[in-house]
């Protein structure tokens, strides 16, 4: 599904990704763990198409299509979704207006009819109920004045509505209380399907008890330095990243 080959990325002359290789298969949930500053968010931004980065080498293929040649909206239409580590507040843009514009833009790009308003509202209400998002939150401007946890839930609501095929969750668990973590995880698990893959970035094993990954990758210094099964997360939780730092120094 997603294939990243030898990705080298820099920003303002600072190299952040150093020949990163990663494959995520259809139906797979892949977790990425790694110390602060190792490049996890950078990787997610580069996949989603943020402009600031200079791609020096490598490629990113989604179902064989070269993502690096597409605009962010085209990538979204192709199925990429990034749940932001820090979702942005957009004053003056009503959440519902935004959701409707996003859904219909993607439908249009895929040559589908726009949703009717009743159909749209029905879908939003269903997703909001599942994620226990109060209706009056949706009446406000997008993310404005939302708590940290509410913003994260809003990201998952968008994911549930847009039904992407490749979902990146960048520290979606940070800022969530215990109940919210369960609710959001259930929301994510409900979307798991043989046609959909997830890249779950997290610092804590805890999330992976709820969203059980198929593979775990360790990112360090802008590369995947180790890959394994879900037990790798437990090992990292116990030992930290000290081993990788030493190997870097050596």
């Amino acid at each position, binding site marked *: 599904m997603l294939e990243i080959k030898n990705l080298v990325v820099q920003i303002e002359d600072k190299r952040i990704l150093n020949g990163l290789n990663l494959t995520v298969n259809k139906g797979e949930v892949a977790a990425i763990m790694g110390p602060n500053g190792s490049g996890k968010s950078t990787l997610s931004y580069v996949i*989603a*198409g*943020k*402009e*600031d980065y200079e791609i020096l080498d490598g490629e990113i293929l989604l179902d064989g299509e070269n993502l690096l040649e597409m*605009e*962010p*909206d085209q*990538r*979204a*239409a192709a199925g*990429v*979704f*990034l749940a*932001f580590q820090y*979702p*942005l507040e*957009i*004053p*003056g*843009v009503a959440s519902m*207006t*935004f959701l409707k*514009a*996003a*859904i219909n*833009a*993607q439908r249009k*790009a895929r040559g589908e009819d726009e949703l009717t308003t009743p159909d749209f509202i029905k879908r939003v209400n269903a997703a909001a109920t599942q994620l226990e998002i109060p209706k009056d939150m949706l009446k406000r*401007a997008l993310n404005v004045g939302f708590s940290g946890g509410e913003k994260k839930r809003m990201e998952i609501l*968008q994911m549930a509505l*847009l039904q992407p095929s490749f979902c990146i969750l960048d520290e979606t668990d940070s800022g969530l209380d215990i109940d919210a973590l369960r609710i959001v995880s259930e929301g994510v698990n409900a979307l798991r399907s043989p046609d959909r893959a997830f890249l779950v970035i997290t610092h804590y094993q805890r999330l992976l008890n709820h969203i059980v990954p198929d593979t775990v990758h360790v990112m360090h210094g802008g590369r995947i330095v180790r890959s394994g099964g879900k037990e790798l997360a437990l090992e990292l939780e116990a030992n930290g990243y000290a081993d990788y730092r030493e190997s870097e120094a050596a």
Partner: protein
Amino acid sequence: MADVTLMKTPAETALVQAFESAKTALPGDGESRAQAFEHFAQQGLPHRRVEEFKYTDLRALLREVAPFAGTPSAEEAKAALAGAKALAGVDALQVPFVNGHFVRDAVDFHALPENVEIVPLAEALANGHDWLAKLSPVKWANDNPVYQLNTSFMADGVMIRIAGPVEAPVHLRFVTSATSAVATATRILVVVEEGASVTLLETHESTDGANHQPNDVVELIAGDRTNVQHVRVNAEGNKALALSTLAAKIGGEALFNSINVTAGAATSRHQVFAILDGENTNLRVNGTTMLKGTQHGDSTLVVEHAAPHCESRELFKTVIDNEATGVFQGKIIVPHHAQKTDGRMMSAALLLEEGGAMNNKPELEIFADDVQCAHGATCGQLDEDLLFYLMARGLPKKEAESLLVQAFLGEALEFVENEAVRESLVGTVEGWLKARA
């Protein structure tokens, strides 16, 4: 007699000739016209070395003076009004003007709404109506050359008296349907008596492709405890040089809320001169300006807090696409006795492309010591991170930009109280954005 030696440009010479030949034909006693024109002639067309016209150099912009428009035939007027689009869906008392002339037939004088009285200005000038003494209520306007030109040439308009609460809005609809360039000079006087309330709509439309030169003045005298909601729409044709002035004198414990929405004209300048003349009055003057191509849009504002305990809010939002130029000049004046004044003025501009420009000049002139006044001006581009966020959700770039621009302008539009009008204005913004996509 005007001093011709100081008038150098061909346009200035043409204005002198136009005045000479028009003054006997124009209605009313020529005295005040002659005086206004003489004042104008002493300075001539203002240019960039005149502080208030630094960014809108009328001497350079007004190359050729268009002939003043004649009165349209009944059929012409009817056709022009039938094609008018601005705020078309809004239920209101229509007070229409075509080519600068009041369309009398379109108003049923026997069935005017309660508390509304309308007097045609041309007639009032010719007969020396009592209310004429109320013209020019704001001293700041008298020194202004654009206003002086209007006083010199004003040919028609209406005087409206609002004696109590008026339910439906009063819509001053200006349409210029002439296909070759014409000049117009209209004057509106609205007197809102103590305790009365009214919504005044003012829309200006003209044909594309002709260098029309409208110069419109609306004067408002609002008494104590009045509530006046005013919405002005500039939807002038794409070649027009549109000059306009709002001069308002507001009494105590009153509310006055005015917004000017500019999308039309090649060059426009909207001037507001407002005096808060009684205590505890609340004034809001907003602006929403959308400019593209090589359009030039100027909003110039003088608000005098002539009484203590008043609050004023001025919020101007300008969106500039392509190589367009925006201007904001705002001044809040607080004389020494106007204690407890609370004034806040803000101009924010968004440049959508590299080639555009915005000139911001907010000023405070404060002589009282116990006041709260602030002003601010910003000029920036759309936030790249917000654009990315929207695009990452599937919105194409233009659409993402449109959402953000709508949100930006919406902050000024949200103060329009009449819902149908507000929705229509939101539609204008959407239309403008669609046209750039």
